[in-house]
């Protein structure tokens, strides 16, 4: 009896032990999880903080490694003055600001234009591939899809030189149209990928009913499917904007002066030695600000675009 009780006791005691230890263990795990999260948040955000804060520093604040505004250095508008974007220079004429705004506008036009074109023709193609059976010679839907997606592996270097020569012949070198065309090519596979996934999730019954009622396939697409697929289109559009806005390789090869985009301007400044840190930081901050805003406010759509076709 006692032996039995003694034998039972440890086995009873063990769950109790763990129940007592569990809160500590759980709290420990919590602390570890949050510590890891905060560490990576620091890694992800520190460069942003550094750039933003450096744009308000003077040379001595940089060389002495000051980090905290108002505490170990006095914020100064010098960096933004050199860009013509500080409060006291914003209404004065500034060549640097004019140049910056021109590059900014070029970036906006190139990325919005290319994204709009890619989403338009990409959505059409994706809808066609999702709904109809094609047969172009020996090419079936699978082959056409593969053809589009295979463009993803094409590295920009392969196209860059031929485009340089061809654009010269077509008088498209250093034009925004030229940039829009090549950016459209760059994001089209991604748009088709995202939109196909989107259309595949929309049941065909609604369109079928519309077709029976005498709607044409284009009518059914424009009036019924498009409104349902709108979130996917927004996601594809925003993802394209991000990719085009950041593009550097083609922009630096195919533009010289008129159509130069923001990344090329930033890069041309980094090349020159002895550039003022504060103006470089101000320029970088201004160049990345639109994307940071997109990231903060439209994160949902970016995630939606990136996760199309996976995890389902």
């Amino acid at each position: 009896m006692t032996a039995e009780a003694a034998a039972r006791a440890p086995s009873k005691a063990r769950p109790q032990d763990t129940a007592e230890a569990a809160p500590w263990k759980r709290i420990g795990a919590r602390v570890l999880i949050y510590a890891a999260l905060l560490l990576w948040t620091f890694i992800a955000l520190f460069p942003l903080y550094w750039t933003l804060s450096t744009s308000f520093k003077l040379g001595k604040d940089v060389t002495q490694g000051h980090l905290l505004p108002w505490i170990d250095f006095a914020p100064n508008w010098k960096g933004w003055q050199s860009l013509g974007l500080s409060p006291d220079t914003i209404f004065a004429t500034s060549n640097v600001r004019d140049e910056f705004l021109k590059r900014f506008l070029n970036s906006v036009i190139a990325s919005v234009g290319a994204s709009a074109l890619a989403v338009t023709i990409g959505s059409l193609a994706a809808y066609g591939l999702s709904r109809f059976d094609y047969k172009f010679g020996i090419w079936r839907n699978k082959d056409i899809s593969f053809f589009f997606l295979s463009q993803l592996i094409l590295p920009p270097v392969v196209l860059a030189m031929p485009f340089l020569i061809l654009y010269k012949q077509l008088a498209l070198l250093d034009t925004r149209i030229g940039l829009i065309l090549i950016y459209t090519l760059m994001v089209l596979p991604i748009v088709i990928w995202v939109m196909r996934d989107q259309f595949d999730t929309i049941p065909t019954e609604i369109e079928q009913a519309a077709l029976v009622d005498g709607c044409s396939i284009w009518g059914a697409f424009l009036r019924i499917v498009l409104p349902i697929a709108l979130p996917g289109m927004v996601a594809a559009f925003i993802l394209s904007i991000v990719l085009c806005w950041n593009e550097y390789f083609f922009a630096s090869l195919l533009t010289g002066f008129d159509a130069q985009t923001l990344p090329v301007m930033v890069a041309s400044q980094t090349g020159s030695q002895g550039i003022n840190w504060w103006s470089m930081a101000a320029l970088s901050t201004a160049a990345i600000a639109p994307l940071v805003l997109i990231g903060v406010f439209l994160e949902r759509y970016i995630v939606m675009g990136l996760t199309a076709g996976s995890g389902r």
Partner: protein
Amino acid sequence: MLETAHEVLPEWRVSAGRRLFRLATLLLFAVAVLQLMDALGVTTIGFSNWRPLLYAFVLWGVALGGSQVLARGEPGQQTVFVLPALLFTVAMVIFPTFFGLYMAFTDWNLNAESGHHFNGLDNLATLWGDSYFWNALGNMTFYVLTVLVQYAIAFGLALLLNAEIRARKFFRVAFLLPFMLSPVAVSWMIGKSIMENRFGPAATFARFIGWENPAFFTSPWIAKTSIAIMDSWVWIPFIVIMLLAGLQALPNEVKEAAKVDGAGPWQSFWEITFPLMLPVSVTAVVLRIIFELKLADIVINVTAGGPGGATDTISSFVYREYRDRSNVGYATMVAEIYLVIIIVFVTLLLKMVNRFMQKMT
């Protein structure tokens, strides 16, 4: 797939459609021939550029779509959906690729007065003996292998984000932000200022932990690693987002079953989560490798391939060949060979992945 009705088209529509297509093709050919003759000096119309041919091609594309609808009715309307993207991609890719093949076999230099000449396999021979090319290819292997490290870190971060935490939205946005930034801005923000040898915070930190004269871009392996770190900083969020979506799609019963079985977190990760996540993982890693093969911007802007080519990628090497020497013939040959290598590599990779996935399931 949609079921669509069949209709009988009137004779006039069919013939009108065919006529439209023939007319447009004729026009395209006429413009092409005229431009070619003008370029060769046979006629003297004096085109200033080849744009007329571009416009003729666009017109031909529109006519092709119109004739499809006219002559084929409903199936034609279906074709028009995919036609713009198809014509656009073919025109933008196929033509430059073939033109690039031609360029690759010439001694084309933009600075040369004498123009360009066909030079057979000379470029290939140069490439075979070019130590910079082989070195860059070796570096690419290193960069591609770092994708696995990125994947491991990203998996950890995705698990953290998937845990029961507060302020998940904040952490998700914070983790995503690096992916939104342009590599050029990152080159300055991290490469040229944070990793600056004298005042950069990274250098200060390195001195603090005992590295006496920190220099991130002077010795080959450290430089390579520094580039890889910047590249990872930008791209890890991409993998995290894909893996997180995969984790959130896992059925809840699976996790509960693991808890009931009394499996520890480590065990349940390796025996349940990881195998279930394999398909998503493979997609993420393969996509990431494909993007990694294009790595260029950061290298061009931070080290320009240096020191002594230690950080070179094929793309940055080709970029310099053009920028510094205007040697487009040879540069194109390198790019085309690289394309062949990529196609072979990616095909093998996909084959391997497919076989591996079949074995697993």
